[in-house]
């Protein structure tokens, strides 16, 4: 027994010695850390998007949209002569993963952040990018908490819950809704939108007869539908995602609901029509930002997207494209990648033309005119423009 363990004693001391040497040797270089050492080469744009977890379908669309913009800018000579390089990291719609991803981007020396899908995951990354002095143009996440954080380096290219609610209220007024019922899924995005809508609808004197929250992982919503029907509803605003939204619409129509079924931008997706089924898509409308096919040269954009990635552009691909373009414009006008200069440039950006119309930012970094429109389901199941709400 004796000899056998003598070696452990020796092994133990060697390991301890090695650790001490590492301690002294590495002490100079390692600790500085943080800060983005400007390597002169490409301008690195970081993007956090969901590549795993429940929302992972949207990660690919966002990355493709951003890549399309980066390639276009690089083809046109890049920004201030430097090429742009896109680095995408996983956010998985979860705080812990998003923070790890944000730190990874910071350590890879990104000078701008153009991602952000789930509000709950984007929120904790705000202080990390601020401390690393990195400006942020958030592509999809639009909860008012991001604005409430009051960070100068945060800009949203997707209309916030409040702005989308304004469009929904305008549409409700236009359709003379007598009894409105709001349904959300209890998650960050849908509760933000439903609260904004209910407060603005009441201000506008509309009769909100009731609201409820459904559990999205369930399939059977007959009881929620029953509560909605009993309230004599003629106008429903569903603020959750398409997975449960399409089922609620189907079951409401099956239970004899004839009124308008308005859905938030989260549920506007070709799969909504597919799941809710043929014959159940009438009277379904959606509040949504301008999509490429609604714009004058929009068709060209989706064609460019299609031949590069082989599929039609999915939701938020356009917003990610705009986020990259806006960030690049900000850096170009600021003439440097310093956060404060870029923030200032973005703030006084006036009507910068993008694929979905002109963009300029308010004081808090949100779009001055979110340009929400009303879309409806075309016979082929896709969502098409129904009302520009200009009037």
């Amino acid at each position, binding site marked *: *027994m*004796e000899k056998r*363990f*003598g070696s*452990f*004693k020796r092994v*133990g001391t060697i*390991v*301890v010695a*090695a*650790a*001490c040497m*590492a*301690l002294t040797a*590495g*002490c100079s270089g*390692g*600790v*500085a*850390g*943080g800060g983005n050492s400007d390597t002169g080469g490409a301008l690195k744009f970081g993007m956090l998007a969901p*590549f*795993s977890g429940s929302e992972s379908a949207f990660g690919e669309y966002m990355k493709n949209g951003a890549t399309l913009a980066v390639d276009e800018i690089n083809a046109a000579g890049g920004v201030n002569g430097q090429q742009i390089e896109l680095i995408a990291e*996983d956010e998985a*719609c*979860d*705080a*812990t993963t998003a*923070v*790890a991803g944000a*730190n*990874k981007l*910071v*350590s*890879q020396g990104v000078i701008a952040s153009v991602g952000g899908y*789930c*509000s*709950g*995951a984007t*929120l*904790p990354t705000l*202080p*990390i990018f601020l*401390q*690393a002095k990195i400006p942020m143009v958030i592509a999809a996440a639009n*909860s008012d*908490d991001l604005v409430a*954080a009051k960070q100068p380096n945060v800009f949203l290219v997707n209309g916030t819950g409040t702005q989308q609610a304004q469009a929904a209220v305008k549409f409700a007024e236009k359709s003379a809704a007598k009894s409105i019922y709001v349904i959300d899924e*209890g*998650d*960050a995005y*849908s*509760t*933000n939108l439903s609260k904004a809508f209910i407060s603005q609808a009441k201000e506008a004197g509309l009769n909100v007869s009731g609201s409820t*929250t459904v559990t999205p992982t369930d399939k059977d919503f007959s009881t929620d539908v029953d509560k909605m029907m009993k309230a004599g509803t003629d106008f429903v605003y569903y603020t959750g995602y398409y997975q449960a939204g399409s089922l609620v619409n189907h079951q409401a129509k099956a239970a004899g609901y004839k009124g308008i079924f308005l859905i938030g931008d989260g549920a506007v997706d070709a799969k909504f029509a597919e799941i809710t089924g043929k014959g159940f898509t009438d009277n379904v409308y959606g509040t949504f930002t301008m999509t490429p096919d609604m714009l004058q040269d929009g068709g060209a954009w989706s064609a460019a997207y299609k031949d590069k990635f082989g599929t039609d552009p999915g939701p938020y691909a356009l917003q990610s494209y705009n986020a990259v373009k806006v960030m690049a414009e900000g850096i170009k006008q600021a003439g440097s990648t310093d956060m404060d200069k870029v923030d200032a440039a973005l703030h006084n950006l006036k009507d910068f033309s993008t694929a979905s119309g002109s963009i300029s930012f308010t004081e808090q970094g949100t779009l001055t005119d979110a340009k929400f429109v009303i879309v409806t389901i075309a016979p082929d199941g896709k969502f098409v423009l129904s009302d520009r709400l200009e009037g």
Partner: protein
Amino acid sequence: MPLVLKESSSELLVPPNRHQMPPPAPFRWRSEKGALNVLGIAVFILALAVPFITASPYVISILTAGLIYVMLALGLNVVVGYAGLLDLGYVAFFAVGAYTSGILTTTFGFSMLEAVPVTILVCIVAGIIIGGPTLRLRSDYLAIVTLGFGEIIRLTARNLEITGGATGISGIPSWSFFGWDMADGLVIAGIEFNGKILLYYFVALVVGLVGVGGISRLSRGKMGRAWKAVRDDEDAAEAMGINTYFTKITAYIIGAVWAGLAGQLMGTYLSAISPTSFTFLYSALILMAVVLGGMGSTPGVIIGALFVSLAPEFLREFAEWRYVLFGVLLVVTMIFRPQGIWPANAVFPWSPALAARRARRAKATEAPEDSAAGRPA
């Protein structure tokens, strides 16, 4: 004169031929336990050195997340490894810790330090509320009921206003002692630690060390033996004077408090928590860390926790397939190597060979049947 140290009253039965009290065991470098301690200290020093080698925020942040996983795995090891209670809702206490400290610091203006005792108290109460009714049940009911409680706590956090609803709580302050806040860095002897990330890494490391040392010592004490007895044979443990219900509740509460502290650490570290990071998936991941590492073995559980938390970061394509792989690994481990990578009773993974050799030695001395028994007192 044998040193009579049983300080309890005289009516206690004392074995007649009591050995002379063995001298306090010296810190035996030679023995396996000694070697394990040396290895433990060496690993700790190496971990201390890492920030000086590569201070990139990404590496440090995933190491800190890994350390938090180690803390959770240590806590769950007490419940599953030592006491044999399958808890499928362990992340509920992680959430209770995070939310209690989050609410206290953001809405009630507690400083993070003042929040610690309250968090511990709340976790104890939660442990009793969840453990109380369920610990009378058989282990398979216990598994589903703890899973149910885990979901109840997550959904309640998601639905209530005070817990910030679905967006959760943001703006949780970091630790601050007497005016100095963790976020604004520290300068010690010329070495400048900037940024919260580095400091939290060291905090997590120290708390981890306390956990490893404390909980493995706990398992060698009276309470640890009671847990293992309850795990092996509940009726026999009851017959030996161990109140099994109380023993199980203690394991449950210690596990709960430990997870609560880990939750509080994660809250201050991330400065924002949301219900999406307390789903059943995370309870299952911690369980996998404990089971793959080796139930009831501290080194094994540490390895399991680091594997479960760090593997997806390093092997990118693994991230997609990790849950399927974990599922398969669980089944394979349970069938072919139920004691896990680093078995509990063996001090070192290769120790079974040693344990077998020791057993042969025991049998050799035991063979002459008619010797010792019945010697006159």
